[in-house]
């Protein structure tokens, strides 16, 4: 249900400007954005993707759905007409110019701040300029994705970077993305720099006398004289690799230059050939073989792949010794897009550490995790240290609903001694012990209640 019109809300202490009339100058789109949308979302699995601002199952006409899809990636440039005061005084308001981030200046994993008005013009006293934080999750040209939570009505809202400070990076193109009728938890953005370039060109074409208007559009940070601002971003954002085993694919992380850890359900058979692709160097692919996979009875869904040659340039993360609930964490993985796009980064916190006999056996995080992320790394955002291996998100078997923001990882402390032993000696004995985890650990991973000792009979 949407918000119902009701009595006027109390202002939250900041008087709003009265609505000002405006004129539509032009509608514009970014052709590169639309091309990437077509490539990523309208391929074989086109029917799986939806971008509507309504939930699957809502009663919406086909025309409305079609209109919304057609408008995806279209934006509008408006001219606000001067108010009476400005017209009288012959001057419009002045403010600091908006800084615009050049395309590609903000790296994956970089923090972003989205600002929009949920439900559009509904109750601006309450909803105007609501903020939401996240990271740049993925990028394909001007098509950007963030895990900042955005709501219907925030379409067109600005997304700003912490670096360059306060720079406008993108506009919200579609706040809600659905895949296979499930909310993905990512917001689709269009980079603003190419949009403004298109706007300048269009203004010159449509309104030859509007050179002044085009000149007033904000410039990119660093332009025109300096080199574009470049931030390399956190090194762990490139640490995930794509693991392909037959028709199954998932994510993985290098724990040594020739050794990749993934999930058993990605690479289940020992001896099976596996193709590992890294995003650094671009599209590098190396064959390997599964040297170990836990048995189906093991609660730890883990497989180890030995590569034919070392992964060059892929960072090997440092594992942690201990976990801090509440710390900022990031998941890197090939969920949602697989090979069609580089790995995605999603941010959150370490929401729970489950112990058995004072030993961490399960980690939970609030990062959005999707199908294809299995085997990917869970990092400490601040230190970049490896916390665990993502094993699954959550599904309610009664309703069929999937919850991307509740997910489970295998603590790296469970795996580290065995992996070190294997790296040092080639002995799989330590890894084999994962097949014989204690019953309480199995209970935890089955999401069952802890076993209680049955009451003794008095007979």
């Amino acid at each position, binding site marked *: 249900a949407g918000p119902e019109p009701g009595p006027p809300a109390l202002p939250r202490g900041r008087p*709003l*400007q*009265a609505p000002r009339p405006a004129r539509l100058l032009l509608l514009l*789109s970014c052709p590169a954005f639309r091309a990437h949308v077509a490539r990523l979302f309208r391929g074989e699995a086109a029917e799986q993707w939806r971008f509507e601002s309504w939930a699957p199952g809502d009663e919406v006409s086909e025309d409305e759905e079609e209109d919304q899809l057609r408008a995806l990636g279209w934006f509008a440039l408006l001219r606000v007409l001067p108010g009476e005061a400005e017209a009288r005084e012959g001057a419009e308001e002045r403010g600091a110019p908006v800084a615009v981030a050049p395309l590609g200046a903000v790296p994956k994993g970089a923090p972003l*701040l989205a600002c929009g008005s949920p439900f559009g*013009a509904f109750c601006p006293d309450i909803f105007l300029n609501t903020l939401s934080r996240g990271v740049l999750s993925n990028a394909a040209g001007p098509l950007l994705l963030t895990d900042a939570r955005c709501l219907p009505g925030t379409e067109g809202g600005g997304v700003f970077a912490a670096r360059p400070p306060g720079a406008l990076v993108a506009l919200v193109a579609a706040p809600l993305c659905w895949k296979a009728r499930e909310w993905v938890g990512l917001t689709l953005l269009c980079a603003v720099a190419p949009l403004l370039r298109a706007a300048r060109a269009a203004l010159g074409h449509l309104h030859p006398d509007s050179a002044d208007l085009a000149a007033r559009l904000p410039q990119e940070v660093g332009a025109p004289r300096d080199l574009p601002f470049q931030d390399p971003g956190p090194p762990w954002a490139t640490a995930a690799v794509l693991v392909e085993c037959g028709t199954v694919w998932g994510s993985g992380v290098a724990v040594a230059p020739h050794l990749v850890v993934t999930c058993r359900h990605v690479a289940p058979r020992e001896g099976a050939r596996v193709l590992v692709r890294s995003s650094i160097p671009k599209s590098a692919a190396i064959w390997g073989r599964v040297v170990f996979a836990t048995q189906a009875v093991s609660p730890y869904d883990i497989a180890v792949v030995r590569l034919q040659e070392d992964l060059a340039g892929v960072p090997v993360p440092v594992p942690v010794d201990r976990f801090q609930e509440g710390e900022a964490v990031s998941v890197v993985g090939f969920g949602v897009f697989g090979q069609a796009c580089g790995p995605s980064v999603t941010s959150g916190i370490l929401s729970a550490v489950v112990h058995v006999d004072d030993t961490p056996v399960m980690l939970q995080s609030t990062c959005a995790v999707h199908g294809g992320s299995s085997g990917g790394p869970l990092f400490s955002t601040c230190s970049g240290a490896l916390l665990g291996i993502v094993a699954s998100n959550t599904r309610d078997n009664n309703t069929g609903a999937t919850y991307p923001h509740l997910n489970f990882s295998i603590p790296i402390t469970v795996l580290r001694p065995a992996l070190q032993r294997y790296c040092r000696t080639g002995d799989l004995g330590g890894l084999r012990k994962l097949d014989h985890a204690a019953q309480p650990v199995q209970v935890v991973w089955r999401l069952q209640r802890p076993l209680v000792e049955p009451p003794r009979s008095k007979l």
Partner: protein
Amino acid sequence: MGRPWGPAMKAAEQTGCVVSASRAGRPEEGSWSCSGVILSRSPGLVLCHGGIFTPFLRAGSGALTAPGAAFLPGDSCGDDLRLHVQWGPTAVSPAGRAERNGVGLCTPQC
């Protein structure tokens, strides 16, 4: 939020706005609205989502998918399109100067 977010929050507050579109003389049809960004205050230039203009396109939404269509002029929409932009108070706009008796906002159709 901490200091690193200061400039971003300030920029967001100063540039965030909401745009509503309606049909002149037909309030019963309601309004369409979305968020936007104020790119410049002098002259007032705003960038917002294009989806709210779909119902007003003279040639229908098919105009958006025409081959090679990268932009459409403002008169692609009907003459009855009425637009309003609303934003919050900013340091450059003293509250006493704000027009308090302007057009009221419509609530979006639910």
